[in-house]
């Protein structure tokens, strides 16, 4: 117990200044990028037992830090993230370093190019110090599906951190770096942020380039920041957002940017999603969320209940569309061009089939085969086309809800973090954990998880959602909501 209290105190004590302030102090010479990198590397080494990180990039990070410090000494303006260390989920390609997506099939793969998101952060002076653990290929909600072992929850080392960006969330909460990057295809940024206790932003679909991020389900995949405050997440989004020629699904950024979080909750209409607050939600989570709503109401927000009647069908639609796209995206892992290859194959077919059997974990195989099934002739209309049409229905319901309210509100998961190993052998049960996050991905709207409080010592996050393209407004409201419940 003494240990636990120590940890809680450590988690709540700020180890890092706000990101904008770090960058200002590095630019003015008051802080050295080299010292910040060492501080981050030391924190990573001290917290090895949580297994948030798969690999550190010391050599590269130290050399970048030296360059930044010397540029500043020479009078150069480095940028909005000057000297700020960060950790990237290990499905982001960082030039010249190993990127595994926590899968055996990519073990040893050295990135020959770099994700646009990383390029943009580096162009503003940020320094990638480490790669974070994840469920292999981002398939999962607990980070137990990593081929290299699970990550542990910072609030209770016997529990899961959430997933699939569990390593990124734990890294931020343990303050191994000021921020981390994650990817969110069905909740993989918001749910671990909620369960581990940090802010996690899933931007509008298309706002941040996925070039150089290992693809999962391309019509749903988004990338975004995990951070300790909404301000920090907003600054990181501001640096990454906008059109990229290397990802043709990217959209124009908001010309006003994403860092103005001024304003108040006064008069803002917030719709509580009825379908998410019912019997599937554990009472202890509901209690924390209702207390947060009361405080937001006291700060002037207009709280109403709204219904999106097709939401209970979103999970079934997701678990057709997602595996279908996974089966297509993972066909590139064939052992011929990169990654693991079965050494004793007699012919090409055996090389494919053995490489993929040995290289992929169970969940990747499961999703590839489910995807193959729903796309096969004879079943395509009944499954895939029907799921895409239900997707339209869900989008229409989101649009109708946003006619009545400015933002939507709900939980991120039915419960707080459960014990490691508690649900491992029942894939359908694990899929059901995604029920409160996947609809947002189907609709392409932005959503954020913000810490709402603790229940029995475990974090509970609240999820706020906005219409597509309203990321700036969402961030401002999230900040105001967080201030209201503090």
């Amino acid at each position, binding site marked *: 117990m003494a240990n636990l209290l120590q940890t809680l105190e450590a988690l709540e004590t700020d180890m890092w200044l706000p990101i904008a302030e770090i960058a200002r102090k590095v630019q003015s010479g008051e802080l050295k990028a080299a010292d910040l990198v060492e501080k981050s590397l030391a924190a990573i080494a001290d917290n090895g037992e949580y297994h948030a990180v798969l690999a550190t990039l010391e050599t590269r990070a130290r050399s970048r830090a030296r360059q930044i410090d010397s540029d500043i000494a020479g009078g150069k303006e480095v940028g909005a993230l000057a000297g700020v260390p960060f950790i990237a989920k290990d499905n982001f390609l960082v030039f010249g370093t190993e990127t595994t997506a926590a899968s055996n099939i990519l073990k040893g793969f*050295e990135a*020959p*190019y770099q994700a646009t998101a990383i390029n943009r952060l580096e162009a503003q002076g940020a320094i990638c110090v480490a790669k974070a653990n994840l469920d292999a290929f981002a398939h999962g909600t607990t980070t137990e599906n990593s081929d290299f072992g699970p990550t542990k929850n910072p609030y209770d080392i016997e529990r899961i951190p959430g997933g699939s960006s569990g390593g990124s969330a734990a890294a931020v909460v343990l303050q191994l770096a000021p921020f981390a990057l994650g990817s969110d295809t069905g909740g993989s940024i918001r749910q671990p942020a909620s369960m581990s206790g940090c802010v996690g932003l899933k931007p509008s*679909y*298309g706002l941040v380039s996925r070039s150089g991020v290992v693809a999962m389900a391309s*019509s749903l995949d988004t990338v975004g920041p995990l951070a300790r405050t909404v301000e920090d997440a907003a600054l990181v989004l501001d640096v990454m957002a906008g059109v990229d020629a290397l990802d*043709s*699904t990217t959209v124009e950024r908001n010309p006003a940017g994403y860092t103005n979080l001024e304003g108040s909750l006064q008069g803002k209409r917030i719709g509580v999603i009825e379908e998410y607050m019912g019997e599937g939600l554990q009472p202890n989570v509901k209690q924390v969320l209702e207390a947060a709503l009361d405080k937001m109401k006291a700060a002037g927000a207009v709280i109403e209940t709204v219904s999106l009647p097709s939401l209970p*069908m979103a999970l*079934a*639609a997701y*678990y*057709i569309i997602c595996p279908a796209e996974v*089966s297509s995206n993972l*066909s590139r892992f064939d*052992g*011929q*061009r*990169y*990654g693991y*290859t079965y050494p004793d*194959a*007699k*012919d*090409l*077919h*055996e*090389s*494919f*089939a*053995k490489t*993929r*059997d040995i290289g*992929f974990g169970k969940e990747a*195989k*499961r999703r*590839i*085969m*489910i995807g*193959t099934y*729903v796309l*096969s002739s004879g*079943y395509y209309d*009944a*499954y895939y*086309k029907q*799921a*895409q*049409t*239900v*997707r*339209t*229905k869900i*989008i*229409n319901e989101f649009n109708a809800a946003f006619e009545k309210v400015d933002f939507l509100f709900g939980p991120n998961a039915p419960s707080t973090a459960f014990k490691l190993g508690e649900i491992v052998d029942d*894939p*359908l049960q694990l*899929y059901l954990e995604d029920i409160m996050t996947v609809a947002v991905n189907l609709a*392409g709207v932005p959503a954020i998880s913000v810490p709402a409080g603790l229940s029995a010592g475990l974090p509970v996050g609240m999820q706020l959602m906005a219409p*597509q393209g309203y990321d700036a407004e969402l961030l401002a409201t999230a900040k105001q909501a967080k201030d209201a419940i503090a």
Partner: protein
Amino acid sequence: MAQISRDDVLKLARLARIDLDESELDKFTEEFSAIIKYVEQLQSVEVSGLEPTSQVTGLKNVMRKDEVIDYGYKGRDLLQNVPAVDNDQIKVKRMIA
């Protein structure tokens, strides 16, 4: 269609180029039936008059000029992870016996 047979799973594994072993086949057969049964509830959703959605940005035909852009790496850099390279080409096993 909720019942998925072992033969169905074997056929899917072949289509997906995954050489499953016997115990995996049994396990997947059991799990797939449960997953397919769950997603089948979609078939009861009324969708008449609605079109399927395959993307959400509303973007159409994103075009670019057909020109070489220098991203700072060469074709040869992309071969560094290839298991077998011969004369700057990817070498694979025999395909036709």
